[in-house]
């Protein structure tokens, strides 16, 4: 798929941003951004701090209303649709959520069933099954009755993902789910998310900070800078040293590991290089 197709065409995508401009109060962040999210794939949003990737995610999740343009879910403007109806198609995990003190994992995950419940808040067998399945998929069933705030960072993030999974939406938007976690936990989480897309057939949009991780797992990389999409496409096409320079001002070498086929992003850090060279000499 080419960039042109992503930006404008592909009107059959379930979730699309059409010429969206958005920001906070008087501060504009996104200007005229269009993006068709590929169905059943993992799309990663990357870009420097303040580039607007979280703002784009929030606007697509209808948390933030666009000043101009619109976000379309199945062809309907998402900000004009019933928010509870949207919540049955689209789940959101915001950045760094804080669990209420003492809330158990099961209780947290059960909140994901809200959009499926009626006015009288009937808890059905279907709800219980969805919660059980979400606990198992996220790998948190073993401590379902413990308080979320007593768990480690990685386990806690899995609980939040389980909550969004219990929502049983075909589309999942996640804002920096791996930030502040150690590398092994990040990889495990990304494995799980990729599996949700490739085995589960769900559409995932994930804001990520780690470039190698994003390029390794994403089917589509979307690079943002100064509130605009610089490029979007398969990692093999867009994850290049030139692009990293253009988007991040980062001098880096990008190589593809021959054995694994995975991308490696090596920042060309001048100080570190000098130090290693003098030691070697």
């Amino acid at each position, binding site marked *: 798929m080419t960039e042109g197709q992503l930006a404008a065409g592909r009107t059959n995508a379930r979730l699309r941003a059409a010429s969206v401009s958005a920001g906070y109060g008087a501060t504009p962040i996104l200007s005229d951004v269009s993006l068709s999210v590929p169905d059943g794939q993992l799309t990663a949003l990357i870009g420097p701090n303040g580039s607007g990737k979280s703002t784009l995610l*929030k606007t697509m*999740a*209808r*948390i933030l209303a666009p000043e101009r343009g619109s976000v379309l879910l199945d062809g309907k403007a998402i900000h004009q649709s*019933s*928010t*509870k*109806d*949207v*919540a*049955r198609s689209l*789940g*959101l*995990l*915001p950045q760094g*959520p*804080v*669990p*209420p*003190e*003492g*809330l*158990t994992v099961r*209780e*947290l995950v059960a*909140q*994901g069933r*809200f*959009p499926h419940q009626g*006015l009288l*808040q009937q*808890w059905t067998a279907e709800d219980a099954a969805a919660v059980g399945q979400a606990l198992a998929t996220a790998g948190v069933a073993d401590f379902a*009755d*413990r*308080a979320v*705030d*007593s768990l480690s960072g990685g386990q806690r993030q899995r609980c939040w993902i389980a909550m*969004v999974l219990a*929502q049983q939406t075909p589309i999942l938007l996640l804002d920096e789910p791996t930030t502040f976690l150690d590398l092994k936990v990040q990889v495990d989480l990304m494995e799980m998310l990729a599996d949700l897309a490739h085995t589960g057939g769900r559409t995932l949009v994930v804001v990520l900070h780690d470039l190698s991780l994003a390029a390794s797992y994403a089917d589509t990389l979307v690079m943002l800078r100064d509130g605009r999409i610089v490029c979007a496409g398969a990692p093999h096409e867009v994850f290049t040293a030139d692009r990293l320079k253009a988007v991040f001002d980062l001098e880096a070498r990008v190589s593809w590991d021959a054995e694994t086929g995975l991308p490696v992003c090596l920042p060309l850090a001048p100080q570190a290089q000098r130090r290693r060279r003098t030691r070697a000499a």
Partner: protein
Amino acid sequence: MTQAAGLLARRSGSLMALLLMALAGAICLLFALHIAVGAKPLPLGTVIEALLARDPKAFDHSIIWDLRLPRALIAITVGAALAVSGALMQGVTRNPLADPGLLGLMAGASFAVVMTSLVFGPAMTNWAPWIAALGAFVTALAVYAVAHWTPGGPTPLTLTLTGAVISAFLAALVSIVHLLNEDSFDNLRVWLSGSLSGRSLETLGVTAPPIIVALLLGLALAPRVTALAMGDDVAKGLGIKTGQLKLQLLVVVVVLTSSAVALAGPLGFVGLVIPHVARLLVGSDYRWIVPFSALIGAAFLLGTDTLARIAIPPREISTGIITAMVGAPVFIQLVRMRAR
């Protein structure tokens, strides 16, 4: 606080239902006890007999129906209203120290009653319930209006700060009036510390319907408060209209608190501490915190008001004083039990 998930780590619906029924049973028992004790102690058998089938000629039955029953019912109503009000306030502000007086409701009630008796004299005492409710309600509107004019609008933070500032301002005015005019406030002293004495069944008749409606609405909204406590963005992602929900919750809090103030004066402690007692027992899901707060609040106020009536016969202590005196050590013990 520790990070334990309440005393009941694993909570099933049936266990919760059983606990709720046990609490309801305890309330019935405390209710009968509340009526039985007093200047003329009555046997529990007589109390139950009178409640089930009133004999208009029996003097004891008249004491029960005309004097003691209203007060017991008021204790239940006020206890439930303040505890639920406090629980919702803590949920909507995400502040564990929030209480029903946070929006200036208690200070507004006190101010209104003190000022009207300053201007119109002690004759106004009969009108105190309505003046208090009106004072609380008007103060809530004023706090909301001031918070509305701040740059951020009426967020939980601006509402809390505005409420604290207006409360302090009104309390200062009340103190000034107290200092300048000592004698005329003797009759208000008991009312100002929170008391259930001297309220008629009519006052309860007027305040009970709004309290019942607000309690039911609070129960219906309770599950959403848990989602709200996880943060605005999480709640919005789940399809909750957070702005609308917060407004609905604040209206429930104002109705419950103004009505409770009409019945019992500015009674503190219950609204702050009872939701925490409920939390210690059932954890952090408002689905359970709200109903348990209602029942524990009712039971607690029935119990402490019974003590207030019999502690130093023939006089009685103000209920508001007993709630804090008895409640504080009980609460500390509960926290210690959970920490273990």
